[in-house]
């Protein structure tokens, strides 16, 4: 298994080497074009420039090969093939890349893998390492990375951290999938801080959005809304949402996963207890 600290160190080192190499090649190319004719380098300058273009193209090709290694990682993670995903991400992190996006994507995929493996602390460290970087053309990666970070922090009980991440996401335009994940995290966060009334704002829209989620998150979100409805005295709504959640998953499994939901499904009274 890849050590997170080692992965982050290697990632930073590779970014530095890539930047130095890019700068050297670019400086060399400019020197060939501008300085070469002045010092009378003749065709040596043009040939050197050609050599630089060839080196750049070859390194670029190697970088593309490296980024192809991790292209399937999200699919492998989603299908639970963690070992295969890990070996591909490891290979991509070890391979040389001239360009930043390949390395940034590999680190993001490693964060996703650790999140799927429920290694929240490690995943959070990777997300933070990624967000400290200038994402450039991959600035779209910032949103999924912040969502993963917020979910990790929620599992770690770092509620101020979750709040900060949610605030950051509110300042950005999210696509539908990101908005759905955000809604899940926000609903759970509000339940954790006991803000049940805000949870029910625009509840019908939230129910409709929950219908677009995969079964387990849909059940969880509706269960949290049911809890909020119960806490605020909307018993009919709470019962309706709870029954919908029950249709999507097994309630006991949901309670084991999120003990706060036990209030919706209280254990049956024990026979033979004290009157």
């Amino acid at each position, binding site marked *: 298994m890849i050590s997170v600290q080692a992965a982050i160190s290697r990632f930073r080192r590779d970014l530095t080497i890539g930047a130095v190499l890019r700068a050297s090649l670019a400086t060399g*190319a400019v020197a060939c*074009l501008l300085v*070469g*004719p002045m010092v009378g380098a*003749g*065709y040596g*300058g*043009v040939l050197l*420039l*050609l050599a630089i*273009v060839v080196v750049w193209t070859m390194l670029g090709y190697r970088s593309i090969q490296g980024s192809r290694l991790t292209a399937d990682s999200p699919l492998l993670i989603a299908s639970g093939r963690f070992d295969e995903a890990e070996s591909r991400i490891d290979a991509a992190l070890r391979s040389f890349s001239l360009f930043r996006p390949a390395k940034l994507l590999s680190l993001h995929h490693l964060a996703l893998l650790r999140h799927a493996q429920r290694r929240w602390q490690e995943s959070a460290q990777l997300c933070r390492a990624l967000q400290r970087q200038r994402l450039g053309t991959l600035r779209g990666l910032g949103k999924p990375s912040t969502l993963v970070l917020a979910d990790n922090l929620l599992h770690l009980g770092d509620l101020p951290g979750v709040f900060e991440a949610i605030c950051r996401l509110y300042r950005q335009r999210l*696509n*539908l999938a990101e908005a759905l994940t955000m809604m899940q995290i926000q609903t759970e966060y509000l339940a954790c801080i006991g803000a049940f009334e805000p949870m*029910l*704002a*625009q*509840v*019908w829209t*939230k129910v409709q959005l929950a*219908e*677009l*989620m*995969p*079964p387990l998150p*849909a059940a969880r979100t509706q269960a949290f809304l049911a809890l909020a*409805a119960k806490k605020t005295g*909307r018993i*009919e*709504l709470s019962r*309706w949402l709870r*029954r*919908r959640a029950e*249709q*999507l*998953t097994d309630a006991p499994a949901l309670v084991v996963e999120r003990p706060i939901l036990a209030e919706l499904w209280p254990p049956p009274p024990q026979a033979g207890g004290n009157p």
Partner: protein
Amino acid sequence: MRIDVQTLLESSRPRPRLDWMAYLGVLAVAAVLGMSLLAERSGSAREDTESVASLIMVLVMAGMFLNTFLQTRAARLEHMRMELADELVQLRRWPQAAMLLQSMLSRPARSPIVRLQALLALCSVAARFHRFEDVTLITDQLLEEMPLDPMATHMIKLSRAMALLREDRLFDADRAISDLRHFSQARESGGLGLVEMYRDVKTGHPAEALEVFAAKRDLIRRQLGHRVADACVLAAKAHDLLGQTEQAGQAYAQATLMSPAVELHRRYPETADLANKYRATPAPSFNQSGATLEVVV
């Protein structure tokens, strides 16, 4: 929806693009080499040819950069449009999705993957507008010409089988379902269970439909989420056909708990008569702030 699917299938086919930059690059290098040979022969023109060669190299590099930039931008734009179309389908904004997909598929796709995604989205839109012959056309063509992984093939075959059932092509549908059973993970497919239930209800075999429901209900709910309502409404119809009114009422209540009755009857017209026989689960209604007002039956 006025969409000529056959035309879109043809117009969206990716076409090989002429890589002008590769030709220009080769030409530029040849020009530089040619000039260097020329300069070797006439020493007086050496400085001029050096300057021209440098200029050509600068132009080639700038051209390569511009070309890469434009191609990347076009690919990103296509990807964004596909993402938007997928969102419109998910949000059930069918007319907007249909228009966007039509405009996307009216020209050659840059990537076969995006074309596949767009055609699958078009299948959903066509099914929503009851254009099942179009669904069959698209799925047949995709299965014929695209190399797909087994899971994607299974999903497309499921759409095809459902469309054939809706078209009342029961013989073809039965063959399609037999074909689906050959899939290595057919036992683990909730979608196949749903198609089998619909076939059994349509052909008047309610007991078999209920057997499938009992065996695959958990799979359907795990894989299809809220679409478990579809299986419940078909189970309600099967119970109703067997005269088991109490069980039919329960299954109908479960179905309408998860999905509005109107939507279920639109998907499965054979179940429409259940609305007059059994009570749908009332959904709470909401005011604008989201607070419940009353129970609507």
